[in-house]
């Protein structure tokens, strides 16, 4: 189906067998339950400001120890794409994006709500997400095994180049300054060197503490940067809540809405999927790019921002298929491309599973079960979301004075339950303060957390490469794949110097 024509017959039989295997895993009662819980928590996280999907996945990561690996990843993935659904609800109804990938949905979605068309906007966001989510899952299914097989021939130089390109691209796509993002990435890599040397086992920067022997834990750092820092920022500017009361009637978009939206959804799905594969905050970039594209292609671009349905359908589709695309590099190369993928890598490694080129052939039940669960989860979200919108709106009205203490308590319990070590709570608080102040001066947390995870991979592959080449750096330029990646990296680094100020993704 997706491979060379020579073995297409054999492989489509394979594919059907694999999908069958996947559903046999995903449809067991326990995994259905976890999938349901995942999308439910995800939607909740998407609805509530103050806690994003990264914080929520970090929190639940510590509770997935005792689960089967398949159940764990099904639950966590549900949170991720569930949040994409939930985020759009609050963007449309109250002009508050629950997470960054839904910021652009506010532009036209909220306008539609003010005009009494909240129902159509919500409905189209949900259908668009469903269609795009399904497209993304099919793409993931086709592309991941292919890339995984290609990556079998990768050696240390290729992996070093991949991590380098990944981090540079994340910085290049960063919404703030590229230099600041690179600085955060370097700080993250440095934080990643604390603990045992991955090759010799010698201790570095542990200052005699046991807690740092294994380096900075991913969960305390992520919860600090994305949970604590977020709440601190919200605490800084508490004001009277400005909720706009909307009556929601008729959740189903009409025929004209469909006609206007079907192409934006299609384009958004494809665009989002490929942007999702690239390193960086795929869903966020995808939603902005889709909005820009629809505006350019539209016959009435001047109406964008006044409540046109294309401005909701396209971006919502794009951010959902991007979530599926972003799993590809992690599952087939073992290289996470964003903060949240770094957490997924952590989740797999807790269970002793190494994502990478051998992942799919070694753990077919896990890979195909996970894929099938995403189909199931997308369908659940569609059914769940439309009737439950009233509940989500009520949840949004939870007073922050209750909400923030609860989020903080969850962070504390989540980190403590990991190793029953209160020092890790202190680590989390430290990174919370660090994240809060750094964000105030324009340094974002995402490159840091990604670099923290990529650090050991990068160091090991760099040192192994030099061992292979006897200290000759030309090894990175004489191997074709590696050379292409290095050239790309250099291009991303010097491009902004020539184009002057980088164009902002935000309008």
């Amino acid at each position, binding site marked *: 189906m997706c491979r060379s024509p020579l073995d297409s017959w054999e492989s489509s039989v394979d594919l059907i067998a694999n999908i069958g295997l996947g559903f046999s895993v995903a449809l067991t009662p326990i995994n259905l339950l976890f999938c349901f819980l995942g999308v439910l928590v995800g939607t909740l996280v998407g609805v509530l400001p103050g806690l994003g999907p990264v914080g929520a996945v970090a929190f639940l990561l510590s509770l997935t120890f005792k689960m089967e690996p398949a159940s764990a990843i099904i639950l966590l993935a549900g949170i991720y794409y569930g949040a994409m659904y939930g985020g759009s609800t609050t963007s449309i109804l109250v002009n508050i994006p629950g997470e960054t990938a839904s910021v652009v949905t506010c532009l036209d979605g909220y306008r539609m709500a003010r005009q009494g068309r909240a129902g159509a906007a919500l409905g189209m966001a949900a259908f668009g997400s469903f269609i795009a989510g399904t497209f993304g899952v099919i793409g993931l299914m086709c592309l991941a095994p292919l890339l995984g097989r290609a990556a079998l021939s990768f050696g240390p130089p290729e992996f070093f180049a991949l991590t380098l390109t990944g981090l540079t691209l994340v910085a290049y796509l960063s919404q*703030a300054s590229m230099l600041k993002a690179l600085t955060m990435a*370097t700080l993250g890599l440095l934080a990643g060197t604390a603990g045992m040397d991955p090759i*010799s086992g*010698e201790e*570095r920067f542990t200052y005699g503490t046991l807690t740092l022997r294994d380096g900075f834990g991913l969960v305390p750092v992520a919860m600090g940067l994305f949970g604590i820092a977020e709440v601190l920022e919200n*605490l800084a500017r508490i004001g009277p809540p400005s909720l706009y009361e909307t009556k929601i009637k008729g959740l189903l978009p009409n025929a004209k809405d469909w006609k206007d939206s079907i192409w934006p959804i299609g384009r958004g799905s494809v665009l989002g999927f490929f942007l999702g594969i690239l390193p960086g905050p795929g869903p966020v970039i995808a939603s902005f790019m889709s909005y820009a594209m629809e505006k350019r292609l539209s016959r009435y671009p001047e109406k964008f921002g006044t409540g046109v349905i294309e401005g909701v359908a396209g971006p919502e589709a794009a951010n959902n298929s991007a979530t599926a695309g972003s799993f590809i590099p992690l599952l087939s190369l073992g290289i996470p491309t964003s903060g949240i993928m770094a957490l997924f890598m952590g989740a797999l490694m807790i269970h002793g599973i190494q994502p990478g080129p051998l992942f799919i052939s070694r753990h077919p039940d896990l890979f195909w079960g996970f894929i099938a669960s995403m189909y199931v989860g997308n369908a659940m979200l569609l059914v769940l979301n439309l009737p439950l919108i009233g509940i989500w709106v009520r949840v949004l009205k939870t007073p922050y*004075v209750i909400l923030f*203490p609860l989020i903080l308590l969850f962070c504390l319990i989540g980190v403590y339950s990991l190793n029953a070590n209160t020092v890790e709570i202190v680590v989390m*608080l430290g990174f919370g303060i660090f994240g809060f102040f750094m964000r105030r001066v324009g*340094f974002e947390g995402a490159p840091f957390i990604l670099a923290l995870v990529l650090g050991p991979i990068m160091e090991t592959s760099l040192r192994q490469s030099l061992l292979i080449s006897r200290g000759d750096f030309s090894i990175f330029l004489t191997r074709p794949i590696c050379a292409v990646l290095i050239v790309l990296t250099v291009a991303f680094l010097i491009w902004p110097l020539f184009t002057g100020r980088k164009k902002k993704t935000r309008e």
Partner: protein
Amino acid sequence: MRSNIAVAAVLLALAGYIFLAAGTLPFGTMRVPQTAFFPRTLAVLLGIMSLILLARALAGREALRGGEKIETQGWIRIAVTLMTLAGFALALERLGFLLTTFLLMISLLRAIEAQKWRKVVVVALATALISYAIFSLLLGVPLPAGLLGI
């Protein structure tokens, strides 16, 4: 503007410190890079980047972004919240989960926006009991018992 200069200066100092601190570890050679090789290389990179940041900040080219001004009230809320969380870390294994959570919630509910005491106590008690039930009884997370014995 000043905060940009301060950040760049702190980063530069950090880079210098890491470079020196890594000096106590074996560096190896390019043929056989050792433990200090990667951190030292990164420290040099960080140093270069913080110098550029510093130069840009001094030239006034770095716009301050995202840094809305925080009122004194906001800083107080943040400080009290952080102290409460640190207190939680200190007290947890001594007082046990239930009591510490109860105190944490009381402190946070009063600090973020002073609520009526009755409401504070009721919410704090309910949160402590419900979270204990969910995490300890339902999910089997080992939580410290402490003074109260549960």
